[in-house]
């Protein structure tokens, strides 16, 4: 059996365990054991990946397996990983693990909550290891749909509206995506021969330029909706704000990354000519995403909305960096995906913890929290500093690599766009520092805040896992950027300016 299948089997075994267990209090324990196993397995995978590479295995994808599934359409169950996928799998495992601990206190329909959460994660894992467009699409939708229930049932505020909006917009995006994928499929054998959904086979055969020009926007927009591409980002703030804590973490931390990953792996890699032709349009849109998202965050008063708009901005930066189409910027894009995934998950976790205690998310109703909740406050400061790109934390490495890559373009258009996008650093600093100042510093605004308790053990486990990851990447980024670069160098042999 293929090693990678464990990434799908472990979540499903965990879900089966949750279904079978009688005592409700054991549900979270089983979830924690399952997701810990998944995290350990991801590290084992990373180790084995390094081992294979150092042993001289230069195959594009490792741990591959292929099984014919639907012969009529040449659909295969094809799995494999390269440096990028391994990094994304690790990110997903860390955030899911932290998410389970952060959700420790979920009382209402606990079994259903953890099943939906883990089902979502299993869709994401499946997506990252799939090398067949059909299977990839299947896992993509599998990851999206539990969101409806997670937000609708366990969410807060206008949760029904947000859940419906999010689901319909994402499914609308996947509708557009599906047309693009079918377009790729029917142009996958330009020299004749068998049509295929096989990602690597398609990349090898190439797609006719006319088809690339037509279908590229379908695929890029399709995935871009999930990556909060302007103007299709509106589901994101509402969805994030209404989602329960762990779901916001998984959604902003992992699910939105499917968008960026898909844009690169499917749209750009399979249709390089299409990418070059359409890049200017999407560079404009992503530049707007970055700047608009940052300004949007400044205007918000609700902590979750601030973070949601900030996610629009940061994910916009991911797509922007990908569209620069050079190795450095693309490495930066993936670093940014991972960095943003970790810090936004931490942010959402902390916001959930703060809300659970203060029962408010409005920043002007809070103040002086540092005095009563030092542990949570320090973590919040660290997440904030990572978000504004402080050296020594993951955000700096990511943003720096993106901007260095983007400035490698000498033409006016790219330079202007990069200049505009760079301005988001300053805007981000404004809203992050404002939030930290208002929320954590100054006098304690409300007397009942004085009775609040700091983080509990399970909250610490979730938060510290994420914070340690942010610091490790910030202090020692080379292992990660080398892991990404190793894959990207080989991809850029066939795909670059």
């Amino acid at each position: 059996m293929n090693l990678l299948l464990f990434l799908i089997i472990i979540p499903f075994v965990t879900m089966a365990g949750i279904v079978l267990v009688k005592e409700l209090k054991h549900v979270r324990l089983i979830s924690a054991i399952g997701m810990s196993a998944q995290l350990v397995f991801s590290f084992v995978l990373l180790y084995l990946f390094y081992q294979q590479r150092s042993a001289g295995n230069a195959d594009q994808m490792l741990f591959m397996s292929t099984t014919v599934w639907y012969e009529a359409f040449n659909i295969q169950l094809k799995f494999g990983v390269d440096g990028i996928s391994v990094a994304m799998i690790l990110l997903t495992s860390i955030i899911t693990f932290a998410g389970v601990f952060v959700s420790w206190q979920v009382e209402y329909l606990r079994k259903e909550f953890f099943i939906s959460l883990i089902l979502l994660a299993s869709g994401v894992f499946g997506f990252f290891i799939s090398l067949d467009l059909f299977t990839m699409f299947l896992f993509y939708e599998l990851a999206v749909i539990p969101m409806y229930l997670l937000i609708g049932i366990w969410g807060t505020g206008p949760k029904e509206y947000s859940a419906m909006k999010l689901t319909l917009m994402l499914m609308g995006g996947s509708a557009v995506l599906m047309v693009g994928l079918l377009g790729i499929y029917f142009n996958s054998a330009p020299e004749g021969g068998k049509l295929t959904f096989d990602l690597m086979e398609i990349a090898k055969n190439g797609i006719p330029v006319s088809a690339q020009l037509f279908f590229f926007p379908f695929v890029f927009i399709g995935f871009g909706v999930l990556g909060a591409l302007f103007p299709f980002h509106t589901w994101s703030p509402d969805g994030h704000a209404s989602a329960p804590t762990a779901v916001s973490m998984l959604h902003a931390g992992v699910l939105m990354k499917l968008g960026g990953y898909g844009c690169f792996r499917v749209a750009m890699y399979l249709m390089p000519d299409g990418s070059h032709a359409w890049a200017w349009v999407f560079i404009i849109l992503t530049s707007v995403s970055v700047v608009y998202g940052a300004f949007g965050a400044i205007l918000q008063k609700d902590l979750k909305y601030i973070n949601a708009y900030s996610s629009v901005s940061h994910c916009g930066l991911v797509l922007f960096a990908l569209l620069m189409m050079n190795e450095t910027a693309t490495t930066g894009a993936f670093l940014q995906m991972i960095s943003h995934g970790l810090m936004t998950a931490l942010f959402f976790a902390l916001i959930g913890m703060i809300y659970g205690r203060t029962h408010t998310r409005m920043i002007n109703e809070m103040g002086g929290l540092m005095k009563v909740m030092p542990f949570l406050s320090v973590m919040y400061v660290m997440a904030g500093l990572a978000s504004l790109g402080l050296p020594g934390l993951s955000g700096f490495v990511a943003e720096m690599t993106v901007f260095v890559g983007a400035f490698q373009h000498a033409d006016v258009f790219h330079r202007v766009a990069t200049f505009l996008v760079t301005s988001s650093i300053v805007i981000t600093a404004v809203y992050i520092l404002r939030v930290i100042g208002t929320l954590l510093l100054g006098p304690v605004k409300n007397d009942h805040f004085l009775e609040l308790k700091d983080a509990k053990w399970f909250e610490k486990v979730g938060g510290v896992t994420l914070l340690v990851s942010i610091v490790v990447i910030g202090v020692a980024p080379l292992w990660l950027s080398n892991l990404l670069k190793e894959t990207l160098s080989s991809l850029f042999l066939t795909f670059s300016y």
Partner: protein
Amino acid sequence: MNWDTIYIMRHEVLLTLLILHQLIGDLAETVDRRRHVFITVLLFAAFTVVGWLPSRPSLLFGSMYISDDLRSLLKNILSVSALIILLQSTTWLNNPLHQKKAGAFYLLIFSTLMGMFFMISAGDFLMLYLGLELATIPLTLLAAFDKDFRKSAEAGVKLLMSSAVSSAVLLFGISMIYGVYGTLHFSEIAGAYNESPLMILGLVFFLSGLAFKISLVPFHLWTADVYEGAPLAVTTYFSVVSKGAAVFTLMLVLYQVFRSQPEIWSSVLYFLAIATMLVGNLFALRQKNMKRFLAFSSITQAGFMMLGFLNAGTIGMTTIVYFMLIYGLSNLAVFGVLSIIMNGTDKEGMDDLNGLYATNPGLSLIMLVSLFSLAGIPPVAGFFGKFFLFTAAASAGMYWLVFFAVINATISLYYYLLVVKAMFINKNETPIARLTSTFYEKLALTLCLVGVLVIGFASPVFEYIRSVM
């Protein structure tokens, strides 16, 4: 008629025996009605199993009757669906109010099924027309089965009138086709080629007649009223078996008789598909009654099915049958849950489902899975069915139609989610109390659920359908 012929026509022959059994059973006034229901279901289950015996390809009665693997499979799909409906309707029929009419119910169901089998096995237009009439007239009676209930009587009359019109239109079309080709035999028409205006008109009339049965817009106007008025078991039968038979017949006629002229019928179906998806969706959005909701949902699904027709190859046919199988099982599951609810509470409003998960988690989950299947959400079978249909249409180069269809699939997701929202998210102080289901109902739901969960992943099902094309 020898044993070989009986074997070839086993579906029809056994069904005749079942009909005779009902007639005799009804004559015996003293018969235990509950036992009668049990025996009938058991006999029909045996009949369904026998139907899966290997078929023997042959032509009977001067090619008026065709038997082959494909037709056998289509009949079997209808039989399985009918069996599930019989299982679901046992509680309703065991109710003292309807107990006396159980024999009549089975008699009518079997008669209409017989008509559908003849439609599928037809080798010429005459046989097809006879089958169609045999299928339609008992259906009208079934719609009016609760004759004391005003809406049911109304449904019967509405169906009678619209069926009569559609039948006349269809017959008119057949007569034009006969006028052009001078024959009613499928094989002779398939061998000739004619593009005269009369032929096109005849084909359009013929298509319109069948479009009535499938509820394609604009021939759908009877659907919601009849679905709402008819007893639930009959509505289920309309939505799955009757529609399935009409779709299969249309497929066989277009692919096998008019296969050399796809440009004529595909352009008609192209616009019918667009109109059906859009109108079905727009009306489904506004429904508050579950039966009417499912009527419009089934209209939309019929629009999706048309996408398979636009691929005039084997893959098109395969996807249609595959989709119909999945659609049938998903719909049967939804109706199964609804039937348990209606038997227990007599409620059929969407709002009545509010908070259902709190009291009936099992039923709610089955409904959830089935609605996701209808919406085409992975990992359930509906996703595979819809994806393959869209792939079939895209392979004919119809990307814009596929685009339109997937947008409609997203719209349809909205109203399926409304039901999910009612069950799982909406709060209700007095939700439907905990309902108990009988063994028959559980069996029916299990069959549907296993089908919906397994068929997508089990590619041999698709490959088997493809192999008999």
